[in-house]
């Protein structure tokens, strides 16, 4: 296979990672809402943890984006 074509296919495959991170981030907020609606009194105190979980899940999707950018523009 042509090296250039392989790079672009790799960049496209990296988008799967971004989609997976979307599932992860959705799961973080969905679980938070599920818990928050059961016990709204405790919800406000957990916002910091919510965003830590969001940041951790999102970072992995952003890494997939970095891989795609490196493949397209640097490698």
């Amino acid at each position, binding site marked *: 296979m042509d090296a250039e074509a392989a790079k672009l296919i790799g960049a496209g495959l990296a988008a799967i990672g971004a989609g997976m991170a979307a599932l992860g981030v959705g799961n973080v907020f969905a679980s938070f809402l599920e818990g928050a609606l059961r016990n709204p009194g405790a919800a406000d*105190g957990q916002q*910091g943890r919510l*965003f*830590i979980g*969001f*940041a951790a899940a*999102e*970072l992995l999707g*952003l*890494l997939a*984006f*970095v891989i795609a*950018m490196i493949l397209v*523009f640097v490698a």
Partner: protein
Amino acid sequence: MAAESGKIDPMHQFLVEPLFGTDHLALGGYNIAFTNSALWMVISALALWAFMLMGMKRAVVPGRWQMAVETMTGFVDSLLMANVGEKGKKFVPYVFSLFMFILLGNLLGLMPLGIVGVHPFTFTSHFTVTGVLAILSFAIVLIVGFWKHGFHFFSLFIPHGTPAVMIPVIFPIELVSFMVRPFSLGLRLFVAMTAGHVLLKVLAGFVINASNAGPAYGVTVGFASFVLMIGISALEMLVAAVQAYVFALLTSVYINDAVNLH
């Protein structure tokens, strides 16, 4: 068609350019040209300075502006109170400056000033900038940690109640997870901002190319992309605020590790 869409380069907006003829300014062999990145950092710092100055009149009954300033400082104050506790009060000035600087940088970069010919530059979309901010936070954690606890700071890498057999395994894992913190902190902000701006420019390219391809394409593809752009712009403003918040939040969580150990 390929050449036509090649005209709109989504990465061009991240180009660092020297301004005001300072491109050969050097100090000790290093180029220290005043770039558009530096210019927008100065603008952010000035905007933050003006924002604070107009709200620090210390009126007993605060006006709207003072209320805005007090909301922001109170927000960072309660963030550190919740994550670090009473000992976190000392770090409010640092975390507040960091949060506001990143927030203003993100938001000013999104301003639609291109209409009047000024092209805002998002300095937070460069790893050199966010990396230095992350190293600053990491350095504060290291200095505070070693200052307060000395070599006892290394107990951070062995969680309470770890069985003795597990220590050789747990220690390197915790050490690595500690050492990648500045990278993940800087990388998250940089990539989130870069991705958003690339997405907006790609959609803008769709609008322009579709409109050039004729009225039928303009109405179907161009208009749909334009509506999507409005939605994405709103989302980007949310991301700008959330990323600044996440940076401040993670900084305060790391400071908590340094101040209170586990």
